[in-house]
């Protein structure tokens, strides 16, 4: 199933918090593999965001795809869009998270893992990426990142994507197993917060990834190879969204780990409450998977009753997000007041806004408030038809994954890369500029796109090349101008960020990476060290494996009545290539 059969050849060290005396060679090796994950992720992001302004210009009503230079590079607007989506939303996130959430729990628990296996997972994931890249770059898989059949891409695309996603499960397995060994060696101990959050996230992802793995392995690969006569498009879509919604929490939870555990320290404050943070992760583990149908409100042949049930569950996922908003804001306030902040809101000025790593993450959270509010609209069965498949949707996810995830990871990288490499951050002021520009660009993009969506502009459409009058009648001038401007701002912000990142990476190693410590924060309400004396909430949240079994059963409960009739009724449709 999800946990691969894994027998570490190097025994896992047990002792309590072996972290205190890390084996230098092991640590160097762990840092190296983590650095490879992170840098590969950022390289994907670089290519992905270079294609971003082209989307923004299209939604500004400017068709640039007939210029000879672009013609030579891109088969069409849709090829550019496919690359933009796959590289930013799937590749960047997958690689960064795999590195981030391998390194953190291993450090936090002070355990040793099998480094050969860690490298094997990285190489397999990269091999998957390169395999999928061939058809993507040669315009043979222009099916967008949702790859809805029966639009049929090259089998290499599905195989590569399958291998890439599958290898993230190897990382998940390695981390969960390492945690399990730590538990066995430390009976009665409370799992430290960072490791707890990482393990909860990996367990959630293991359940969530099943949908897409089954879709790709059972339906799409045999079909694209010509071994089966067709695919039922509804069944494939439903399996896709089994993974497709929780994947957004897989993007956000690693950012939450930083917001909960590290950001308070960066602000000079303390974690508000460790037990509450643990509760938030457990609620995400349970509620973020059984909600995928809210992406399918407009699909025929799915019962409205089950759509409604998924709607209620989707609303419930907002609870841990709201808890996080409270808890993280409280920890920032604690920091600002300790630094002399006064007044009901005046304390905000005392936060360390000049520190780009800090401000990137707080700006990410700020725009995520609007993203979350829009998400509640999307999740509503009543509002669904107003915004479904319109430009509102990309407007929404650019201030969720584009900031909560991407901007947070950018901010994290500003300390994490120096920590991993021992190199000094290049140009802290430039870094500040880059993250503020990114924030402003994303907010403007969101305004422009939400606005256009409400007026009826569809998403994923080369609307700038549409010959019919429909968009000229919609009064789009203002939102189009905002969208176009946002693309330019984002390009400048993105290029500045990569300038800082690559100048840092390519500079000489000047210090021991440990000189830039992981900013572990103290807590106002700590979870404690021993389960026996810990609070009820801490004790109840500790058995993550049992909780994930419960989560899996809940997923089966809400998906079996939906998938059952689809499988019984499946009608295979042959594939078509239409680009």
């Amino acid at each position, binding site marked *: 199933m999800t946990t691969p059969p894994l027998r570490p050849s190097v025994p896992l060290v047990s002792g309590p918090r072996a972290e205190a005396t890390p084996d230098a060679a092991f640590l160097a090796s762990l840092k190296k593999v983590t650095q490879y994950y992170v840098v590969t992720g950022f390289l994907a992001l670089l290519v992905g965001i270079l294609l971003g302004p082209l989307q923004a210009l299209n939604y500004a009503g400017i068709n640039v795809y007939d210029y000879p230079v672009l013609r030579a590079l891109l088969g069409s607007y849709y090829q550019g869009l496919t690359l933009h989506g796959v590289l930013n939303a799937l590749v960047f996130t997958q690689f960064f998270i795999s590195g981030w959430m391998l390194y953190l729990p291993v450090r936090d628990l002070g355990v040793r893992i099998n480094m050969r296996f860690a490298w094997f997972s990285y190489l397999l994931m990269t091999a998957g990426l390169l395999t999928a890249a061939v058809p993507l770059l040669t315009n043979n898989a222009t099916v967008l990142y949702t790859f809805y059949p029966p639009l049929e891409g090259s089998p290499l695309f599905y195989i590569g994507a399958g291998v890439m996603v599958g290898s993230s499960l190897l990382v998940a397995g390695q981390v969960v197993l390492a945690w399990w060994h730590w538990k066995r060696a430390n009976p009665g101990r409370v799992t430290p917060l960072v490791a707890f959050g990482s393990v909860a996230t990996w367990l959630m992802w293991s359940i969530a990834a099943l949908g897409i793995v089954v879709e790709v392995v059972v339906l799409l690969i045999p079909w694209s190879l010509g071994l089966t006569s067709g695919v039922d*498009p509804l069944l494939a879509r439903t399996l896709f969204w089994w993974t497709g919604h929780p994947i957004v929490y897989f993007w956000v939870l690693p950012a939450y780990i930083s917001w909960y555990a590290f950001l308070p320290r960066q602000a000079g404050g303390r974690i508000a409450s460790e037990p509450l943070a643990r509760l938030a992760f457990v609620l995400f583990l349970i509620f973020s998977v059984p909600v995928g149908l809210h992406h399918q409100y407009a699909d025929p042949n799915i019962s409205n009753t089950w759509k409604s049930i998924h709607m*209620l569950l989707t609303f419930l996922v907002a609870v841990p997000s*709201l808890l996080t908003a409270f808890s993280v804001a409280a920890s920032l306030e604690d920091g600002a007041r300790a630094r002399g902040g006064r007044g009901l809101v005046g304390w905000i000025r005392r936060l360390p806004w000049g520190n780009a790593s800090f401000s990137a993450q707080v700006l990410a959270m700020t725009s995520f408030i609007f993203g979350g509010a829009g998400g509640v609209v999307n999740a509503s069965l009543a509002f669904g038809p107003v915004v479904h498949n319109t430009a509102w949707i990309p407007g929404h996810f650019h201030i969720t994954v584009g900031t909560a995830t991407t901007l947070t990871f950018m901010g994290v990288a500003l300390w994490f890369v120096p920590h991993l490499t021992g190199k000094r951050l290049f140009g802290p002021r430039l870094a500040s500029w880059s993250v503020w520009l990114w924030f402003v660009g994303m907010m403007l993009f969101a305004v422009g796109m939400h606005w256009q969506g409400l007026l009826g502009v569809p998403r*994923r459409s080369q609307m700038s090349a549409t010959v019919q009058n429909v968009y000229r009648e919609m009064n789009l001038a203002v939102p189009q101008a905002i969208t176009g401007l946002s693309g330019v701002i984002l390009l400048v912000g993105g290029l500045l960020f990569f300038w800082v990142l690559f100048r840092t990476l390519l500079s000489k190693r000047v210090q021991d990476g440990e000189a830039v410590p992981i900013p572990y924060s103290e807590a106002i309400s700590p979870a404690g060290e021993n389960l026996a004396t810990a609070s009820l909430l801490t004790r109840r949240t500790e058995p993550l494996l049992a909780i994930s079994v419960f989560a899996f059963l809940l997923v089966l409960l809400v998906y079996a009545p939906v998938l059952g009739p689809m499988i019984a009724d499946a009608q295979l449709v042959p594939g078509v290539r239409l*680009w």
Partner: protein
Amino acid sequence: MAAPHRPVRRLDHRTLERYENIWLGIAVVLLLLLFASVFSSMISGTFPLLRGTGGGHAGGVTSGRVDPRNLAATPFAKPGLRENADGSLEAFVVARAFNFEPAVLRVPAGRPVTIHVTAADVVHGYYVTGTNINAEILPGHVASFTLTFRRPGEQSVICNEYCGIGHHGMITRVVVDPPTARSRP
């Protein structure tokens, strides 16, 4: 800005916990109210999903299956509006890269019309501007919704699910004739 650092009382565990619980309560109540309001909207028919029929420019999606390779054997063989013996109106629309058939759908204002849409090749979208008719159109599946166009005039129909290189040109119209016209396809 150079206010002197005075020792401040920092947040303590007990106060924080009280606020946390209040906030958690507010969050849960807020979301249950949200659910209740969507649900009451379903029951009252402000939007019509559970009933399958609706008033105003509103549409729900009900079910149906056809073989996309054999549309000739179904009512989709002749796309367009038809009046049944009992006086009810049904419209059949086929989405096929990169057109809708019929190219222009004419419907009378003020009478309920049931629109059935299916796709002949890949996934398309059926979005009527200025309304909340917005459905995903899958080959092999029929999306159906009943609604009444109240005001005469024209509305655009946009394919809003990526379907290939000509996706952005897949746009057509619904023409709503004045109620007296009793139009036929």
